[in-house]
């Protein structure tokens, strides 16, 4: 079956010739008209539209945005904050970068609509430190929007005021975790907070109710405010509404970003048709479907079970290529849609070496406050690095698994899961390669194979 056409609602103007990131261009394309209408509506109506839309967060967890907003403590008498999570740090993910660099006003409009709907007093955009140009572009865009009355005091002549400031991170992955991000924004180490009691919706920034939303999520809010929650819910599939931006990297002919209706395209269509298939003379071996912490899939494996289609339960029997790219389907086969970062590996890649690369990342990025994660991520790195650069032993797979199994569920934040899932899934799916690695090491690497660690 042929892949469906892209449906670009968020990336509508990305890479469009002649489209620039200044406010003049944005307004010429109908920009800020949605905000103008939104401020004439009741905030509760806007929240209802988001609830009706079924929008799920695009940062990784897929948590329903309307539910998140519904949890905000509005009776505390404390100011409400909104933080735009622009930390974009999950390896394999590179969508928010293009929104912020090429279409920053779309984000600012979505942010201001969300702020108005939630009676937010102050918004911050927490952008990763490695995007200095992005921070400057956003600052310039906010200044333009402020001068035009879309941001700041008495927005569009109303009694509602809310400003946005840009706050730069400094190279720590854990700042993508919302409570770590809040700690960082408070000027501290980004050690995530324990939940309960520190749910951001109740005790967030400065112990005030706080909404943390991903860049792309807020752009979807703008679309929902424009077209209505019901119309948005018709895009995509039930419970996986709207579009998804897939960031494809690694061993395909045409890596890049592609926006499709959620659940309407399969992994096989995305990789073979949209991305042009494997590199010449190679075969797909494995794919990580939702950022580097998502569990890996092995080409050739099959997934069987029952799933709900409409009101009925039907059997499914999928290969990796057949899996629809949505939160629920990827969840059913034991991995996740996550942040949309699809990392593809072909038959030149040795899985021990690929895991060693990922483990080095997580070991570097563990914040260090929980022992299982700090020590576990380090030992998983040490073991896999030793396997590649030192002595590899037959029993290493079992050792790695035992370390990985002792981390998840025993840490303050989800980093414990994020760092153990790669090791657990690589060994579950490619245990044979780990066992034979001492022998494989003695043979020559396949042509075109790169050093990974």
């Amino acid at each position, binding site marked *: 079956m042929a892949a469906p056409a892209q449906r670009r609602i968020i990336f509508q103007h990305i890479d469009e010739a002649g489209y620039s990131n200044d406010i003049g261009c944005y307004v010429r394309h109908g920009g800020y008209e949605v905000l103008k209408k939104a401020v004439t509506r009741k905030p509760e109506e806007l929240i209802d539209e988001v609830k009706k839309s079924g929008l799920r967060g695009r940062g990784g967890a897929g948590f329903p945005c309307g539910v998140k907003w519904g949890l905000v403590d509005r009776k505390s008498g404390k100011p409400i904050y909104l933080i735009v999570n622009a930390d974009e*740090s999950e390896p*394999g993910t*590179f969508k928010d970068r293009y929104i912020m660099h090429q279409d920053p006003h779309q984000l600012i409009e979505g942010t201001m609509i969300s702020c108005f709907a939630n009676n937010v007093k102050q918004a911050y955009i927490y952008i990763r430190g490695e995007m200095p140009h992005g921070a400057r572009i956003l600052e310039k865009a906010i200044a333009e929007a402020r001068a035009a009355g879309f941001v700041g005091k008495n927005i569009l002549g109303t009694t509602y005021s809310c400003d946005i*400031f840009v*706050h730069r991170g*400094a190279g720590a992955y854990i700042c993508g975790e919302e409570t770590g991000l809040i700690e960082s924004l408070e*000027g501290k180490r980004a050690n995530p907070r324990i939940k309960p009691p520190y749910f951001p919706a109740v005790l967030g920034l400065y112990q005030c109710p706080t909404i943390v939303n991903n860049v792309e999520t807020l752009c979807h809010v703008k679309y929902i405010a424009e077209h209505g929650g019901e119309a948005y819910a018709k895009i995509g599939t039930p419970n996986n509404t709207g579009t998804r931006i897939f960031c494809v990297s*690694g061993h395909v002919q045409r890596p890049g970003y592609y926006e499709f209706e959620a659940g309407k395209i399969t992994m096989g269509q995305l990789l073979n048709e949209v991305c042009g298939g494997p590199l010449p003379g190679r075969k797909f071996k494995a794919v990580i479907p939702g950022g580097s912490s998502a569990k890996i899939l092995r080409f050739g494996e099959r997934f069987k079970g029952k799933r709900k289609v409409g009101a009925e339960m039907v059997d499914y029997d999928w290969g990796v290529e057949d899996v629809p790219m949505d939160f629920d389907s990827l969840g059913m086969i034991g991995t996740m849609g996550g942040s949309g970062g699809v990392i593809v590996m072909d038959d030149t*890649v040795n899985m021990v070496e690929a895991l060693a690369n990922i483990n080095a990342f997580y070991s570097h990025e563990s914040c260090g406050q929980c022992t299982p994660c700090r020590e576990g991520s380090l030992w998983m790195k040490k073991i896999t690095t030793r396997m590649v650069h030192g002595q590899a032993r037959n029993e290493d797979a079992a050792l790695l698994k035992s370390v990985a199994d002792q981390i998840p569920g025993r840490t303050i934040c989800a980093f414990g899961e994020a760092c153990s899932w790669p090791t657990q899934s690589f060994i579950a799916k490619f245990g044979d390669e780990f066992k034979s690695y001492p022998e494989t090491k003695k043979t020559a690497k396949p042509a075109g194979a790169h050093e990974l660690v």
Partner: protein
Amino acid sequence: MNLKPATLQSIDEVITHYPVKRSATLPLLHLIQEDIGYLPPDTCEWVAAKLELQPINVLEVVTFYPMFRQKPIGRRHIKVCRTLSCALMGGYKTCEQFEKEFNTHRGEVSPDGEVTVDFVECLASCGTAPVVLIDDDLHEKVDCAKAKQLSDQIKAEAKKR
């Protein structure tokens, strides 16, 4: 602390962005590092005094975030992405090429003082791997040939000085 007047002005301005002064810790460290090139030894006390904190509150931030450095680096900072998508496309070779061009090792200042080459984790541009951040500018699809070309540019600029 010998900061430029423009930096001091930015520091006073950025503090007003937050209801709690401590929040300005990261912005101040960025501003000082951009001005001086690194964070000199008196940074923690200076920032602490400015934000009404203890120096340890600032030091623990400096040592937590990879982008903050307490030692000078080369004139240009070459950060090569090490993480999976870039490594799959040859990021390690790219890094070695830069090391070779400037006769240096990762994490060290090159003998001519011109560059510091570092491996860093994911730069969020995986679709154009391997990527390299030189100072503030992202360079995409940097294979060995492009790494050589970028190195030549840096060397040519150095000669003009």
